[in-house]
Protein backbone atom coordinates (compact mmCIF):
# COMPACT_ATOMS: atom_id res chain seq x y z
CA UNK A 1 0.00 0.00 0.00
CA UNK A 2 1.12 3.56 -0.69
CA UNK A 3 2.11 6.14 1.87
CA UNK A 4 -0.99 6.36 4.00
CA UNK A 5 -0.74 9.81 5.53
CA UNK A 6 -4.24 11.21 5.19
CA UNK A 7 -6.05 14.34 6.22
CA UNK A 8 -9.34 14.01 8.12
CA UNK A 9 -11.17 15.04 4.93
CA UNK A 10 -9.39 12.35 2.87
CA UNK A 11 -10.10 9.69 5.50
CA UNK A 12 -13.81 10.60 5.46
CA UNK A 13 -13.85 10.22 1.67
CA UNK A 14 -11.85 7.01 1.62
CA UNK A 15 -13.77 5.15 4.35
CA UNK A 16 -17.19 6.76 4.11
CA UNK A 17 -17.39 7.49 7.85
CA UNK A 18 -18.33 10.84 9.33
CA UNK A 19 -16.76 12.76 12.21
CA UNK A 20 -17.94 15.97 13.89
CA UNK A 21 -18.10 18.99 11.55
CA UNK A 22 -15.87 21.19 13.69
CA UNK A 23 -12.85 18.87 13.35
CA UNK A 24 -10.69 20.50 10.67
CA UNK A 25 -10.83 18.56 7.37
CA UNK A 26 -7.32 19.78 6.48
CA UNK A 27 -5.68 18.38 9.63
CA UNK A 28 -3.25 15.54 8.94
CA UNK A 29 -3.83 12.36 10.95
CA UNK A 30 -0.57 11.36 12.67
CA UNK A 31 0.42 7.77 11.90
CA UNK A 32 2.15 6.37 15.00
CA UNK A 33 3.41 2.99 16.13
CA UNK A 34 3.53 3.73 19.86
CA UNK A 35 0.88 3.99 22.53
CA UNK A 36 -2.21 6.05 21.58
CA UNK A 37 -5.54 6.77 23.25
CA UNK A 38 -8.85 7.76 21.71
CA UNK A 39 -11.43 8.65 24.34
CA UNK A 40 -11.95 5.53 26.42
CA UNK A 41 -9.85 3.23 24.21
CA UNK A 42 -6.09 2.60 24.33
CA UNK A 43 -3.90 1.23 21.53
CA UNK A 44 -0.84 -0.38 23.13
CA UNK A 45 2.13 -2.00 21.31
CA UNK A 46 2.09 -5.74 22.08
CA UNK A 47 5.00 -7.35 20.18
CA UNK A 48 4.70 -10.55 22.23
CA UNK A 49 1.09 -11.23 21.29
CA UNK A 50 0.26 -13.67 18.50
CA UNK A 51 -0.69 -11.62 15.42
CA UNK A 52 -4.39 -11.26 14.66
CA UNK A 53 -5.67 -13.26 11.67
CA UNK A 54 -9.19 -11.95 11.11
CA UNK A 55 -9.20 -9.30 8.35
CA UNK A 56 -11.01 -6.10 9.33
CA UNK A 57 -14.02 -6.05 6.96
CA UNK A 58 -14.83 -3.20 4.58
CA UNK A 59 -17.41 -1.71 6.96
CA UNK A 60 -14.94 -1.79 9.85
CA UNK A 61 -15.06 -3.32 13.33
CA UNK A 62 -16.84 -1.43 16.11
CA UNK A 63 -14.53 -2.07 19.08
CA UNK A 64 -16.68 -0.04 21.48
CA UNK A 65 -20.26 0.67 20.50
CA UNK A 66 -21.81 3.91 21.63
CA UNK A 67 -25.33 5.02 22.31
CA UNK A 68 -27.85 4.34 19.53
CA UNK A 69 -25.12 3.73 16.98
CA UNK A 70 -23.28 7.00 17.67
CA UNK A 71 -19.93 7.46 19.42
CA UNK A 72 -18.57 4.16 18.21
CA UNK A 73 -14.84 3.53 18.08
CA UNK A 74 -14.53 1.95 14.64
CA UNK A 75 -11.42 0.16 13.35
CA UNK A 76 -11.21 0.64 9.58
CA UNK A 77 -9.87 -1.88 7.01
CA UNK A 78 -6.16 -2.30 6.33
CA UNK A 79 -5.22 -4.87 8.97
CA UNK A 80 -6.41 -7.68 11.19
CA UNK A 81 -8.34 -7.71 14.46
CA UNK A 82 -9.10 -10.69 16.72
CA UNK A 83 -11.69 -9.80 19.33
CA UNK A 84 -10.95 -11.05 22.85
CA UNK A 85 -13.39 -12.95 24.99
CA UNK A 86 -14.58 -10.45 27.59
CA UNK A 87 -14.83 -11.51 31.22
CA UNK A 88 -17.73 -10.77 33.53
CA UNK A 89 -18.04 -8.81 36.78
CA UNK A 90 -14.83 -8.59 38.81
CA UNK A 91 -12.92 -10.55 36.19
CA UNK A 92 -13.80 -8.13 33.43
CA UNK A 93 -10.86 -7.67 31.08
CA UNK A 94 -10.15 -4.29 29.60
CA UNK A 95 -8.54 -5.86 26.51
CA UNK A 96 -10.97 -5.77 23.62
CA UNK A 97 -8.72 -7.61 21.20
CA UNK A 98 -5.47 -7.78 19.25
CA UNK A 99 -4.84 -5.52 16.25
CA UNK A 100 -2.20 -6.37 13.68
CA UNK A 101 -1.14 -3.80 11.09
CA UNK A 102 0.99 -5.36 8.29
CA UNK A 103 4.18 -3.75 7.01
CA UNK A 104 3.40 -0.92 4.60
CA UNK A 105 -0.16 -0.52 5.88
CA UNK A 106 -2.00 1.82 8.23
CA UNK A 107 -5.15 1.11 10.22
CA UNK A 108 -7.33 4.05 11.17
CA UNK A 109 -9.66 4.10 14.15
CA UNK A 110 -12.56 6.52 13.75
CA UNK A 111 -14.77 8.16 16.36
CA UNK A 112 -17.32 10.92 15.67
CA UNK A 113 -16.02 13.21 18.43
CA UNK A 114 -12.34 12.27 18.49
CA UNK A 115 -11.66 12.03 14.76
CA UNK A 116 -9.11 9.46 13.60
CA UNK A 117 -6.11 7.66 15.03
CA UNK A 118 -3.53 6.44 12.49
CA UNK A 119 -1.87 3.21 13.58
CA UNK A 120 1.32 2.12 11.79
CA UNK A 121 2.71 -1.41 11.34
CA UNK A 122 2.93 -3.64 14.38
CA UNK A 123 1.02 -5.74 16.87
CA UNK A 124 -1.23 -3.99 19.39
CA UNK A 125 -3.82 -4.62 22.05
CA UNK A 126 -6.94 -2.47 21.97
CA UNK A 127 -8.22 -1.82 25.50
CA UNK A 128 -10.96 0.17 27.06
CA UNK A 129 -10.98 2.29 30.20
CA UNK A 130 -12.31 1.67 33.69
CA UNK A 131 -13.19 3.89 36.65
CA UNK A 132 -13.71 3.39 40.36
CA UNK A 133 -17.30 3.33 41.54
CA UNK A 134 -18.93 1.12 44.18
CA UNK A 135 -17.63 -1.49 41.80
CA UNK A 136 -15.05 -0.87 39.10
CA UNK A 137 -16.95 -0.07 35.96
CA UNK A 138 -16.21 0.71 32.34
CA UNK A 139 -16.09 4.31 31.18
CA UNK A 140 -18.91 5.50 28.92
CA UNK A 141 -17.58 8.43 26.98
Amino acid sequence: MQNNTLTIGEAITRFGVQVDEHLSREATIPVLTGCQAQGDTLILPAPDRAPATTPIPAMGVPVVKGEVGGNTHLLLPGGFFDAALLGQGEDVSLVLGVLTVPQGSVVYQAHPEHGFLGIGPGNFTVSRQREQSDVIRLVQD
Partner: protein
Amino acid sequence: MAEKITELTPEQEAALEPHRDMWLAIGLSTERADRAEAEAGAREAYTIAGLDQPEAVIWLDSPMEGAIGAWMLASNLAEEAAAGTVVTDDTVGLISNVEEDCDERYPGVWERVMAVIGKGKDYPTFSPVWAGMTESARNGAKSAIREQVRSAAYGQHDAGWLSFNDYFRVVVPVEGTEKLSGLIRVAKSCGWWWPFDRAIILTERPVALHLDPQQRLHKADGPAIEYADGFALYSWHGTRVPAEMIRGEWDTTRILQEPNAEIRRSAIEKMGWEEFVVKAELAQVGEVMDDPGNPGYTITLYDVPAVIYDEPIRVLICTNGTPERGGTRRKFGLTCPVECSTPIEAAAWGYDVSPEVYATLQRRA
Protein backbone atom coordinates in the same frame (compact mmCIF):
# COMPACT_ATOMS: atom_id res chain seq x y z
CA MET B 1 -47.37 -36.77 33.05
CA ALA B 2 -45.68 -34.55 30.52
CA GLU B 3 -42.29 -35.51 29.25
CA LYS B 4 -39.43 -33.69 30.89
CA ILE B 5 -37.50 -31.38 28.57
CA THR B 6 -33.77 -31.84 28.96
CA GLU B 7 -32.50 -29.98 25.93
CA LEU B 8 -33.67 -27.69 23.15
CA THR B 9 -33.67 -28.65 19.49
CA PRO B 10 -31.47 -26.56 17.16
CA GLU B 11 -34.64 -24.86 15.88
CA GLN B 12 -35.72 -23.98 19.41
CA GLU B 13 -32.21 -22.77 20.19
CA ALA B 14 -32.27 -20.54 17.12
CA ALA B 15 -35.59 -19.06 18.22
CA LEU B 16 -34.17 -17.76 21.52
CA GLU B 17 -32.58 -14.54 20.31
CA PRO B 18 -35.41 -13.35 18.07
CA HIS B 19 -37.81 -14.15 20.91
CA ARG B 20 -35.73 -12.13 23.37
CA ASP B 21 -35.49 -9.20 20.96
CA MET B 22 -39.23 -9.26 20.34
CA TRP B 23 -39.95 -9.04 24.09
CA LEU B 24 -37.34 -6.36 24.64
CA ALA B 25 -39.10 -4.30 21.99
CA ILE B 26 -42.44 -4.93 23.71
CA GLY B 27 -41.11 -3.85 27.10
CA LEU B 28 -39.48 -0.71 25.72
CA SER B 29 -42.22 0.28 23.28
CA THR B 30 -43.38 3.89 23.22
CA GLU B 31 -46.01 3.28 20.53
CA ARG B 32 -49.58 4.25 21.30
CA ALA B 33 -51.55 1.35 22.74
CA ASP B 34 -53.42 -1.02 20.44
CA ARG B 35 -56.59 -0.48 22.42
CA ALA B 36 -58.82 -3.00 20.63
CA GLU B 37 -56.22 -5.75 20.98
CA ALA B 38 -55.51 -4.89 24.63
CA GLU B 39 -59.21 -5.06 25.49
CA ALA B 40 -59.64 -8.32 23.61
CA GLY B 41 -56.62 -9.78 25.42
CA ALA B 42 -57.94 -8.66 28.79
CA ARG B 43 -61.34 -10.21 28.06
CA GLU B 44 -59.61 -13.42 27.02
CA ALA B 45 -57.76 -13.43 30.36
CA TYR B 46 -61.10 -13.16 32.18
CA THR B 47 -62.51 -16.04 30.17
CA ILE B 48 -59.48 -18.22 30.85
CA ALA B 49 -59.73 -17.40 34.56
CA GLY B 50 -63.39 -18.42 34.52
CA LEU B 51 -64.60 -14.94 35.38
CA ASP B 52 -67.58 -13.04 34.06
CA GLN B 53 -66.81 -10.36 31.53
CA PRO B 54 -66.27 -6.87 32.98
CA GLU B 55 -68.86 -4.25 32.13
CA ALA B 56 -66.56 -1.28 31.78
CA VAL B 57 -63.22 -0.68 30.15
CA ILE B 58 -61.46 2.50 31.24
CA TRP B 59 -58.40 3.92 29.50
CA LEU B 60 -55.95 6.17 31.31
CA ASP B 61 -52.66 7.74 30.26
CA SER B 62 -50.09 6.49 32.76
CA PRO B 63 -49.42 4.06 35.63
CA MET B 64 -49.96 6.97 38.01
CA GLU B 65 -53.39 7.71 36.63
CA GLY B 66 -54.08 4.00 36.59
CA ALA B 67 -53.13 3.58 40.26
CA ILE B 68 -55.30 6.47 41.31
CA GLY B 69 -58.15 5.21 39.19
CA ALA B 70 -57.71 1.72 40.61
CA TRP B 71 -57.85 3.11 44.11
CA MET B 72 -61.06 4.90 43.28
CA LEU B 73 -62.61 1.73 42.00
CA ALA B 74 -61.21 -0.52 44.72
CA SER B 75 -62.19 1.67 47.63
CA ASN B 76 -65.68 2.31 46.40
CA LEU B 77 -66.52 -1.03 44.94
CA ALA B 78 -65.24 -2.95 47.91
CA GLU B 79 -68.62 -3.62 49.48
CA GLU B 80 -70.53 -4.13 46.34
CA ALA B 81 -68.09 -6.21 44.36
CA ALA B 82 -64.80 -7.48 45.61
CA ALA B 83 -61.95 -5.84 43.81
CA GLY B 84 -58.86 -7.79 42.96
CA THR B 85 -56.53 -8.72 40.21
CA VAL B 86 -57.18 -11.66 37.97
CA VAL B 87 -53.66 -13.00 38.16
CA THR B 88 -51.13 -12.20 40.81
CA ASP B 89 -47.58 -12.25 39.64
CA ASP B 90 -44.04 -11.66 40.73
CA THR B 91 -43.03 -9.42 37.91
CA VAL B 92 -39.88 -7.82 36.82
CA GLY B 93 -40.92 -4.25 36.11
CA LEU B 94 -38.93 -1.56 34.39
CA ILE B 95 -40.55 1.05 36.55
CA SER B 96 -40.12 0.84 40.28
CA ASN B 97 -41.07 3.06 43.17
CA VAL B 98 -43.84 4.70 41.25
CA GLU B 99 -45.65 5.05 44.54
CA GLU B 100 -43.14 7.62 45.75
CA ASP B 101 -44.27 9.88 43.00
CA CYS B 102 -47.82 9.83 44.26
CA ASP B 103 -46.80 12.54 46.69
CA GLU B 104 -45.90 14.86 43.88
CA ARG B 105 -48.31 13.78 41.21
CA TYR B 106 -51.38 13.09 43.22
CA PRO B 107 -52.95 16.56 43.37
CA GLY B 108 -52.34 17.32 39.71
CA VAL B 109 -53.75 14.18 38.21
CA TRP B 110 -56.71 13.76 40.46
CA GLU B 111 -59.12 15.85 38.42
CA ARG B 112 -58.06 14.32 35.16
CA VAL B 113 -58.47 10.77 36.45
CA MET B 114 -61.76 11.68 37.99
CA ALA B 115 -62.91 13.05 34.66
CA VAL B 116 -62.06 9.86 32.85
CA ILE B 117 -63.17 7.44 35.52
CA GLY B 118 -66.22 9.59 36.00
CA LYS B 119 -67.48 8.38 32.66
CA GLY B 120 -68.05 5.16 34.55
CA LYS B 121 -71.09 6.87 35.99
CA ASP B 122 -72.83 5.88 32.82
CA TYR B 123 -72.47 2.25 33.72
CA PRO B 124 -75.25 1.12 36.03
CA THR B 125 -73.00 -0.87 38.33
CA PHE B 126 -70.91 2.11 39.15
CA SER B 127 -73.59 4.67 39.75
CA PRO B 128 -73.47 4.26 43.55
CA VAL B 129 -69.70 4.56 43.48
CA TRP B 130 -69.45 8.19 42.63
CA ALA B 131 -71.91 9.27 45.25
CA GLY B 132 -69.54 8.06 47.91
CA MET B 133 -66.53 9.94 46.66
CA THR B 134 -65.75 12.40 49.43
CA GLU B 135 -62.94 14.66 50.48
CA SER B 136 -62.06 12.41 53.40
CA ALA B 137 -61.62 9.46 51.09
CA ARG B 138 -59.35 11.60 49.03
CA ASN B 139 -57.16 12.46 51.99
CA GLY B 140 -56.80 8.82 52.82
CA ALA B 141 -55.85 7.86 49.33
CA LYS B 142 -52.07 8.05 49.31
CA SER B 143 -51.20 4.80 51.02
CA ALA B 144 -54.14 3.13 49.35
CA ILE B 145 -52.76 4.10 45.97
CA ARG B 146 -49.52 2.41 46.90
CA GLU B 147 -51.53 -0.76 47.37
CA GLN B 148 -52.85 -0.34 43.85
CA VAL B 149 -49.32 -0.15 42.49
CA ARG B 150 -48.62 -3.52 44.04
CA SER B 151 -51.81 -5.02 42.73
CA ALA B 152 -51.34 -3.91 39.14
CA ALA B 153 -50.65 -6.09 36.18
CA TYR B 154 -47.77 -4.42 34.44
CA GLY B 155 -48.66 -4.96 30.81
CA GLN B 156 -45.60 -4.31 28.65
CA HIS B 157 -43.51 -4.18 31.84
CA ASP B 158 -44.40 -7.80 32.51
CA ALA B 159 -42.06 -8.53 29.59
CA GLY B 160 -39.51 -10.09 31.94
CA TRP B 161 -41.46 -13.07 33.18
CA LEU B 162 -43.92 -13.26 30.28
CA SER B 163 -41.13 -13.55 27.71
CA PHE B 164 -39.85 -16.65 29.50
CA ASN B 165 -43.27 -18.25 29.67
CA ASP B 166 -44.16 -17.13 26.15
CA TYR B 167 -41.11 -18.96 24.82
CA PHE B 168 -42.40 -22.20 26.31
CA ARG B 169 -45.87 -21.40 25.03
CA VAL B 170 -44.96 -20.61 21.43
CA VAL B 171 -41.65 -22.28 20.69
CA VAL B 172 -41.52 -25.53 22.68
CA PRO B 173 -44.58 -25.62 23.56
CA VAL B 174 -45.32 -26.65 27.16
CA GLU B 175 -48.80 -27.54 28.31
CA GLY B 176 -50.33 -25.00 30.68
CA THR B 177 -48.62 -21.96 29.23
CA GLU B 178 -51.57 -21.40 26.89
CA LYS B 179 -53.38 -19.97 29.92
CA LEU B 180 -51.19 -16.91 29.59
CA SER B 181 -52.41 -16.02 26.10
CA GLY B 182 -54.72 -13.25 27.31
CA LEU B 183 -52.09 -11.66 29.53
CA ILE B 184 -49.58 -11.82 26.69
CA ARG B 185 -51.94 -10.10 24.28
CA VAL B 186 -52.37 -7.26 26.79
CA ALA B 187 -48.62 -7.02 27.42
CA LYS B 188 -48.01 -6.72 23.68
CA SER B 189 -50.57 -3.95 23.36
CA CYS B 190 -50.41 -1.47 26.28
CA GLY B 191 -48.96 -0.44 29.64
CA TRP B 192 -50.04 -1.20 33.21
CA TRP B 193 -53.56 -2.46 33.83
CA TRP B 194 -55.90 -3.29 36.67
CA PRO B 195 -58.46 -6.04 36.29
CA PHE B 196 -61.46 -5.80 38.61
CA ASP B 197 -64.51 -8.01 38.76
CA ARG B 198 -66.65 -5.58 36.83
CA ALA B 199 -64.23 -3.16 35.25
CA ILE B 200 -60.81 -3.03 33.68
CA ILE B 201 -58.46 -0.09 33.83
CA LEU B 202 -55.97 -0.15 30.98
CA THR B 203 -53.22 2.43 30.56
CA GLU B 204 -51.12 3.81 27.74
CA ARG B 205 -47.46 3.15 27.13
CA PRO B 206 -44.92 5.93 27.76
CA VAL B 207 -44.50 8.51 25.03
CA ALA B 208 -40.72 8.60 25.51
CA LEU B 209 -38.10 6.29 27.01
CA HIS B 210 -34.33 6.80 27.07
CA LEU B 211 -31.56 4.28 27.83
CA ASP B 212 -27.78 4.47 28.06
CA PRO B 213 -25.59 2.09 26.01
CA GLN B 214 -25.82 -0.46 28.83
CA GLN B 215 -29.60 -0.42 28.49
CA ARG B 216 -30.17 1.36 31.79
CA LEU B 217 -32.76 4.11 32.09
CA HIS B 218 -30.89 7.34 31.53
CA LYS B 219 -31.40 10.88 30.34
CA ALA B 220 -28.99 13.64 31.29
CA ASP B 221 -31.27 16.60 30.61
CA GLY B 222 -34.86 15.43 31.02
CA PRO B 223 -37.16 12.62 32.06
CA ALA B 224 -35.98 9.10 31.21
CA ILE B 225 -39.61 7.94 30.96
CA GLU B 226 -42.47 10.22 30.10
CA TYR B 227 -46.18 9.56 29.79
CA ALA B 228 -48.78 11.54 27.88
CA ASP B 229 -50.25 13.01 31.07
CA GLY B 230 -46.88 14.38 32.13
CA PHE B 231 -46.07 11.65 34.63
CA ALA B 232 -42.31 11.20 34.36
CA LEU B 233 -39.38 9.46 35.98
CA TYR B 234 -35.83 10.78 36.02
CA SER B 235 -32.90 8.41 35.93
CA TRP B 236 -29.12 8.73 35.76
CA HIS B 237 -27.52 5.56 34.35
CA GLY B 238 -30.16 3.41 35.99
CA THR B 239 -30.33 5.28 39.30
CA ARG B 240 -33.69 6.93 39.85
CA VAL B 241 -33.04 10.54 40.82
CA PRO B 242 -35.12 13.64 41.62
CA ALA B 243 -36.17 15.89 38.75
CA GLU B 244 -34.39 18.87 40.37
CA MET B 245 -31.07 17.05 40.14
CA ILE B 246 -31.47 16.40 36.42
CA ARG B 247 -32.51 20.00 35.89
CA GLY B 248 -29.15 21.02 37.34
CA GLU B 249 -30.67 22.72 40.40
CA TRP B 250 -28.46 20.93 42.95
CA ASP B 251 -25.46 22.80 44.33
CA THR B 252 -22.57 21.18 46.22
CA THR B 253 -24.30 21.59 49.58
CA ARG B 254 -27.42 19.82 48.35
CA ILE B 255 -25.35 17.04 46.81
CA LEU B 256 -23.48 16.43 50.08
CA GLN B 257 -26.74 16.43 52.04
CA GLU B 258 -28.16 13.66 49.90
CA PRO B 259 -28.34 10.54 52.12
CA ASN B 260 -28.45 8.07 49.25
CA ALA B 261 -24.91 7.39 48.01
CA GLU B 262 -26.03 6.30 44.54
CA ILE B 263 -27.95 9.54 44.04
CA ARG B 264 -25.00 11.53 45.43
CA ARG B 265 -22.64 9.96 42.89
CA SER B 266 -25.09 10.54 40.10
CA ALA B 267 -25.42 14.21 41.06
CA ILE B 268 -21.63 14.68 41.04
CA GLU B 269 -21.38 13.07 37.61
CA LYS B 270 -24.19 15.30 36.41
CA MET B 271 -22.46 18.44 37.75
CA GLY B 272 -19.13 17.22 36.38
CA TRP B 273 -16.12 16.29 38.51
CA GLU B 274 -14.06 19.23 37.27
CA GLU B 275 -16.63 21.63 38.71
CA PHE B 276 -17.23 19.55 41.85
CA VAL B 277 -13.55 19.33 42.93
CA VAL B 278 -13.37 23.13 42.93
CA LYS B 279 -16.70 23.83 44.62
CA ALA B 280 -16.31 21.09 47.22
CA GLU B 281 -12.69 22.22 47.79
CA LEU B 282 -11.24 18.71 47.45
CA ALA B 283 -7.57 18.32 48.43
CA GLN B 284 -5.03 17.89 45.64
CA VAL B 285 -2.81 14.78 45.77
CA GLY B 286 0.78 15.01 44.50
CA GLU B 287 2.00 17.37 41.81
CA VAL B 288 0.23 18.62 38.73
CA MET B 289 1.75 16.61 35.84
CA ASP B 290 1.98 17.00 32.09
CA ASP B 291 -0.66 14.94 30.28
CA PRO B 292 1.18 12.38 28.11
CA GLY B 293 0.06 12.55 24.49
CA ASN B 294 -1.85 15.78 25.07
CA PRO B 295 0.76 18.54 24.78
CA GLY B 296 0.07 21.80 26.60
CA TYR B 297 -2.33 20.21 29.09
CA THR B 298 -1.93 18.81 32.58
CA ILE B 299 -3.55 16.19 34.80
CA THR B 300 -4.33 16.67 38.50
CA LEU B 301 -5.35 14.16 41.18
CA TYR B 302 -7.72 14.91 44.08
CA ASP B 303 -8.81 13.10 47.22
CA VAL B 304 -12.49 12.19 47.36
CA PRO B 305 -13.28 11.65 51.06
CA ALA B 306 -15.44 8.74 52.22
CA VAL B 307 -18.32 11.10 53.02
CA ILE B 308 -18.83 11.55 49.29
CA TYR B 309 -18.57 8.03 47.88
CA ASP B 310 -19.01 5.96 51.09
CA GLU B 311 -15.41 4.84 50.66
CA PRO B 312 -12.34 6.98 50.03
CA ILE B 313 -11.40 7.20 46.36
CA ARG B 314 -9.57 9.70 44.16
CA VAL B 315 -10.44 11.57 41.02
CA LEU B 316 -8.20 12.55 38.13
CA ILE B 317 -9.10 15.74 36.33
CA CYS B 318 -8.06 15.68 32.66
CA THR B 319 -8.59 17.79 29.58
CA ASN B 320 -10.02 16.24 26.43
CA GLY B 321 -7.46 15.65 23.67
CA THR B 322 -9.89 16.83 21.00
CA PRO B 323 -11.46 20.31 20.89
CA GLU B 324 -15.20 20.81 21.23
CA ARG B 325 -17.26 22.79 18.75
CA GLY B 326 -16.04 26.36 19.22
CA GLY B 327 -12.49 25.27 19.99
CA THR B 328 -12.73 24.84 23.77
CA ARG B 329 -11.37 21.75 25.50
CA ARG B 330 -13.75 19.86 27.77
CA LYS B 331 -12.46 18.88 31.19
CA PHE B 332 -13.57 15.64 32.80
CA GLY B 333 -12.94 13.52 35.89
CA LEU B 334 -11.96 9.85 36.11
CA THR B 335 -12.30 8.11 39.45
CA CYS B 336 -9.64 5.69 40.71
CA PRO B 337 -8.68 3.83 43.90
CA VAL B 338 -6.73 5.61 46.68
CA GLU B 339 -3.75 3.38 45.85
CA CYS B 340 -3.05 5.74 42.94
CA SER B 341 -0.71 8.35 44.42
CA THR B 342 0.20 10.43 41.37
CA PRO B 343 -1.79 11.67 38.36
CA ILE B 344 0.17 9.35 36.04
CA GLU B 345 -0.56 6.33 38.23
CA ALA B 346 -4.25 7.23 38.17
CA ALA B 347 -4.33 7.63 34.39
CA ALA B 348 -2.41 4.36 33.94
CA TRP B 349 -4.75 2.49 36.30
CA GLY B 350 -7.68 3.51 34.10
CA TYR B 351 -6.30 1.44 31.22
CA ASP B 352 -4.66 -1.21 33.44
CA VAL B 353 -1.13 -0.39 32.27
CA SER B 354 1.97 0.61 34.23
CA PRO B 355 2.73 4.33 34.80
CA GLU B 356 5.95 3.85 32.79
CA VAL B 357 3.98 2.57 29.80
CA TYR B 358 1.36 5.33 30.15
CA ALA B 359 4.12 7.95 30.15
CA THR B 360 5.04 6.82 26.60
CA LEU B 361 1.60 7.78 25.26
CA GLN B 362 2.25 9.50 21.93
CA ARG B 363 -1.22 10.85 21.32
CA ARG B 364 -4.45 11.18 23.26
CA ALA B 365 -7.28 12.15 20.93
